[in-house]
């Protein structure tokens, strides 16, 4: 976690360079999002659009606040004692931090995939995929079966597991487990999928299969992916946001950001001078 106090860093307010895209539809809009851990801010005053049916990558060195910002989008900070979020996160125009909004509803619309595959070990492959559907009260077997096939197909896991849907989820390999977690998140048909370094615990082949998946997935769902791997961001994303020390330094379409960054710090990071 980046830990600094506003006093220690004189740069406040809107320091970031944002290149908006007038042609793209905005799904989420972050407005002056600040995440506080006690008296310290993890990310500060972030404004960022997240465009519908695109992949947005969040990059930056360790502890720059990219994961902290990602977790602010689906109110995961609610679960951390002493963590507090200020600012607004507008999902289709509705502030998810509005007192009238139920965080449970927010998380149903904004799914999440974590750094380490975390299937529920007591449930089967099938049970994992339908876990979210059972929560919303869907009990009918035909509906569940249909959803399982759809979600597993979207996660490119169906062919590998269709003959052993009721096998324990822990019998899968690491890469398969991560795709199972993606299927689990997709089964509830979220509008947005947040991915927190989803390939960092996986081997190159599993990483490749998940990266391939993203291009397919963005047809159905808006994706935000945190990665510390710049090549990965370059390969999979349409937009990139570069974080440093809790600030969003630069945001824009991936290609221009990587080839002609506007901020010196972005350039330094991308060319590998630090990070």
């Amino acid at each position, binding site marked *: 976690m980046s830990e600094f106090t506003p006093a220690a860093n004189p740069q406040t307010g809107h320091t970031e360079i944002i290149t908006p895209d007038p042609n793209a539809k905005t799904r989420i809009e972050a407005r002056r999002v600040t995440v506080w851990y006690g008296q310290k801010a993890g990310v500060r005053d972030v404004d960022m659009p997240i465009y519908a049916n695109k992949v947005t990558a969040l990059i930056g060195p360790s502890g720059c606040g990219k994961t902290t910002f990602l977790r602010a989008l689906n109110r995961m900070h609610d679960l951390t004692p002493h963590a507090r979020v200020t600012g607004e996160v507008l999902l289709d125009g509705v502030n998810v931090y509005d007192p009238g909004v139920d965080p449970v509803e927010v998380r149903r619309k904004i799914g999440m995939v974590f750094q380490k595959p975390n299937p529920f070990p007591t449930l089967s492959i099938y049970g994992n995929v339908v876990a979210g559907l059972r929560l919303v009260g869907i009990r009918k077997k035909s509906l569940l079966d249909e959803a399982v096939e759809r979600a597993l197909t979207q996660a490119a896991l169906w062919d590998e597991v269709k003959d052993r849907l009721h096998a324990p989820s822990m019998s899968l390999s690491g890469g398969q487990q991560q795709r199972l977690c993606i299927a*689990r998140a997709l089964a509830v048909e979220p509008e947005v999928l947040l991915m927190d370094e989803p390939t960092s615990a996986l081997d190159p082949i599993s990483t490749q299969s998940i990266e391939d998946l993203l291009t397919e997935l963005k047809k159905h769902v808006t994706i935000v992916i945190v990665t510390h791997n710049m090549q990965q961001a370059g390969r999979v994303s349409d937009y990139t946001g570069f974080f440093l020390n809790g600030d969003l330094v630069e945001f824009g379409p991936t290609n221009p950001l990587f080839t002609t960054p506007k901020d010196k710090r972005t350039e330094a990071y991308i060319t590998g001078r630090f990070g």
Partner: protein
Amino acid sequence: MQQASTQSALIKRKTSAIYRVLGDRIFLAVVLLLALSLIALTLGLGYFLYLGGSQTINKEGFFGFLTGTTWDPALRLEFGIWPYVVGTLITSLAALVLSVPVALAAAIFTAEYAPRWLAGIINYLVDLMAAVPSVVYGIWGIFVLAPFLREAFYLPVFLWASENAPWLVRYLGNPAGYGLFTGIVVLSSMIIPFTAALSRDAISLVPVAQREGAYALGATRWEVMQMVILPYARGGIFAGAMLALGRALGETMAIAMVIGNGNILPYTLFGPASTMPAVIALELKEAVEDLHYSAIIGVGFFLFLIAFIVNATASYLLNKLKVSEQRF
């Protein structure tokens, strides 16, 4: 040059040769000996209990001794331990059934919901409950719980039944306060801390990634509890319940003080009953006949056997229930 000489100095440095050569073997021998002594101790315990009880067990027959319902050390010298076996199993299992919901609730509350200061107080008290000597629970049972249950529960129920449902009276038994049900209540309050402590640890050990996985699907707090936390912690919760059951099976003093010590099959709820540990503790000093003495040791043998079976079953089930995040 400098470096080379340092290296050769290191290589040539003398070590205590005997330690280098024999150290591992001596260590292994000591560890092996101590480990084997545990096996010997357990087998020896069972064997000598059987030996001590064999006089009566042979006279009554193995199953005759176990399933006989007459225990008469005074006149007929007939020994059947079934009433005590049933008394032990009923009190222990009923105490387990009564205590697990309370213990689990305490564990869930302290591990998940309570503010830290309150969880600390409750956990401290739960641990304290485990440290209180059982004779203290016995005194509490005699002077507080039994009179209370008699006034508040046994007598009203008994009086109601004798007027409205006379057939029920013979199953209720003497509402004196000292009997089967009081024993169960005392026993269940004694074993709460074992289940509570192990369940609490198991619940706190559920990885954050598991909880977040469920929250991220849009689960409420209670849904996370039943979908992820309790299934993940089930091994630890079961282990706690089994530890409590083992403790209940062997509990002697408190139960001997409140259960009324009747040597008949406990078919009444309030009436006197007895358990295997209680009969051993109470009759050992009074035994004059060899056959009686041997019968008491025989009770010990069968108690050992029950504990063995319960533990073996528990560890088998525990292996089935254990949740591993490793691939298998």
